[in-house]
């Protein structure tokens, strides 16, 4: 009976269901079917023998990963960079959007908005190269400035301590402006009557932000937060790889860069697939717990 219903519903709205098809195909073809490839992490995969011809080795590659001395360093680095993203980067677009919203001069608002967007369209190579030129020891702007003020030059590029600040500053520099788009849209959707009413009651600008703007965009913030946690370990391979060097490897090596060196540069396909699988697994656990937490706090969550 129920089945019959469903079919009738589909037939009735077939145009709409047809529109799902490309998306569905995309996921099946590019997301679900490829998961088959994960089996090579349980094999001694040799490209020329293919998946069917390679020998099974069970958890060997996972064992190697967990016993690798670098493992905990990589794990820690990945998590720390992720947390920094969450703590330092995530709020920036929200703050920026609220500030922009308070600007009453439309022309100026648009101008600033455009300026802060632009870095998003530059590749990491450009961003990193610009910072390189700025902070290099041999004639870099910042170091020359420090020198002129009689201070010690700082070796930003070749030190453990400066990698993380540099990383997060570059992330904010490139992505903060772009991140404001969604929030600005959400803010624009707030009923202006609410503001009028609050002004009547004598609320100042800060009160309005705190009691109207923020609560109104709360659900958007939560959804974006969960999505952000979804890319938990996608810290930007390109970015980190460009900053990585012998002197900061202890804090800068993350799963993505490790997969690259172990997998592509040395052709250890099985091992790097195991590393990648582990990474995805951690990501899944984090998203599910974030979603669960969101629901606990009465929000909708993403699923």
């Amino acid at each position: 009976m129920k089945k019959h219903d469903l079919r009738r519903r589909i037939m009735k709205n077939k145009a709409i269901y047809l529109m799902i098809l490309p998306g569905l195909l995309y996921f099946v073809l590019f997301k679900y079917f490829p998961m088959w490839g994960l089996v090579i992490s349980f094999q001694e995969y040799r490209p020329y023998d293919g998946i069917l011809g390679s020998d099974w080795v069970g958890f060997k590659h996972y064992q190697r990963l967990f016993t690798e001395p670098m493992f905990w360093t990589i794990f820690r680095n990945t998590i720390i960079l992720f947390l920094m993203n969450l703590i330092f980067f995530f709020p920036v677009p929200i703050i920026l959007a609220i500030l922009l919203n308070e600007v009453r001069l439309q022309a100026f608002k648009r101008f600033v908005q455009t300026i802060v967007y632009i870095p998003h369209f530059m590749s990491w190579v450009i961003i990193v190269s610009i910072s390189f030129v700025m902070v290099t020891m041999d004639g870099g702007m910042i170091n020359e400035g420090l020198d002129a003020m009689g201070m010690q030059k700082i070796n930003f590029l070749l030190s453990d301590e400066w990698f993380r600040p540099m990383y997060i500053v570059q992330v904010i520099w490139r992505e903060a402006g772009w991140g404001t788009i969604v929030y600005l849209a959400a803010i624009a959707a707030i009923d202006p009557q609410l503001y009028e009413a609050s002004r009547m009651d004598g609320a100042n600008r800060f009160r309005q932000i705190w009691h109207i703007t923020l609560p109104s965009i709360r659900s958007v913030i939560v959804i974006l937060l969960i999505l952000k946690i979804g890319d938990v370990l996608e810290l930007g391979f390109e970015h980190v790889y460009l900053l990585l060097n012998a002197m900061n490897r202890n804090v800068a090596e993350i799963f993505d860069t490790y997969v690259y060196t172990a997998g592509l540069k040395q052709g250890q396909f099985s091992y790097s697939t195991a590393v990648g699988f582990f990474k995805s697994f951690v990501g899944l656990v984090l998203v599910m717990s974030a979603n669960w937490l969101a629901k606990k706090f009465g929000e909708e969550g993403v699923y």
Partner: protein
Amino acid sequence: MRKKQAATTFRVLCTTTLAGCILAGCASGSGVNEGSATSGTNQGGAPTSETQAPFKLTIMTNLHTPEVPTDAIEKMLEEKTNTDLTINWVPDGSYEEKLNSSFATGSLPQAVYMKNQTTYILFRDAIRNNQFWEIGPFIKDYPNLSKLDELVVKNTAVDGKTYAIYQERPLSRQGIIFRKDWADKLGLAAPKTTDELYNMLKQFKEGDPDGNGKADTMGLTDRSDLVYGAFKTVASYFGTPNNWGLADGKLQPEFMFPQYKETMDFFKKLYDEGLINKDFPVTSKEDQQNLVITGKAGMYIGSMADVQSLHQKTVEINPNALYDVANHISGPDGNAGIWSIPGYGNLVLFPKSSVKSEEELKSILAFFDKLMEPELANLVKWGVPDKHYTIVEGGLVQKAEDTKMTDREQKPYEILQVGGESTIDMLRAYNKLPAKAKAEELIIENNSMLINDPTAALDSKTFGLKGVELQQIINDATYRYILGNLDAAGFDGEIERWKKGGGESIIAEYNESLAKSQ
């Protein structure tokens, strides 16, 4: 910039799932190559016949210039060899990963260049697993290929069998390039010992060699490369073995020798006293050369042949600049040495996944045989006469001045060359620039003091598997030692880490392989 390309390629493979997709794709058959393979078999058998339709050949090779070249030379090659060529140019910087991913997906073309010895060694395992054609038995049938140097061919062999055609390289081009005008001004002669080398660098920094009254010069420029940068070359002045050396009859990696530490101390001194660019562990080759070209630094250690391009670019800024080259620097023990490569640079392999039959292989070999005829060898090496070069006194070649034009039209094709001057009767270079002429002399002179890599023809399975990853431990430790981030005990600790991570097996396997070969 090259990293960008690397990264984009990587993005495709980045997530496990996607990588899996590509790998899964290859399991279901190597459809990619069928087109070229069948056409190859059709043509096989009578490779030299001119009346036949052109033989289709795809080649993958590395590209050293920023742009893919124009196809004028390719057209001429096609015409002269009756071949329909498709050359897949891959930027040098991302060549290894392209090689690995093409191999994994079974989409290697019919002839594959290996870039260098290191990349080649990573493929030994696949070669043993019968993934590439053994060409040893066929070579003697080809008049030119059979002229290839037996000793070098032996260096390329895997388990005594020949799989590759090699490209000849001088055994060692390494040496010093320095600003002669600066040295003259300071009254310094070309360095003969490592102490004099140090002294020159010190004077270059402190003696105001550019005469502008400001302390804005430095000595050496180096880049993030411990092998082709300055480090390994200076290490051979100190008598460090080349990758591996014998101690009490046993093979040991270079970094376990005291000379390696002496070299590190030398560099540490340079770093501490500011005689070398402070950011050298992250400096690119381009930035490194720019420091010399713009007159900020006075010395460059690397391939002496680079003096030509350095000179050209420097005189555009400062017409009075003058370069000189030097080598034969003796270390504290009074001996001089220079590390060498095993006589080959690039190599060509023929994958079985794309070359389906012996006939096809023979046709391909016939193409490379023709490439070794003087006419074609000159075409790929020098280009078109009166366009890319002119013949001057004594029948020598003078290259065209317009390097932008030659970079675009001719230079990339040099990579196709097989064999070289000692196996082909080809045109030789005339050097208008005295420093370049001297560099060529010194490159030959280097042959008298070579430090060879004793493991060149040996084999270690663990090295093939984890060698690169392990080497990174040592490279990192070397940089950290030089920058004062690690002391001698710490460096020894890193060696222990290298040993535990698989280095012990590498040592054992190489020694075993050595015992077997004796």
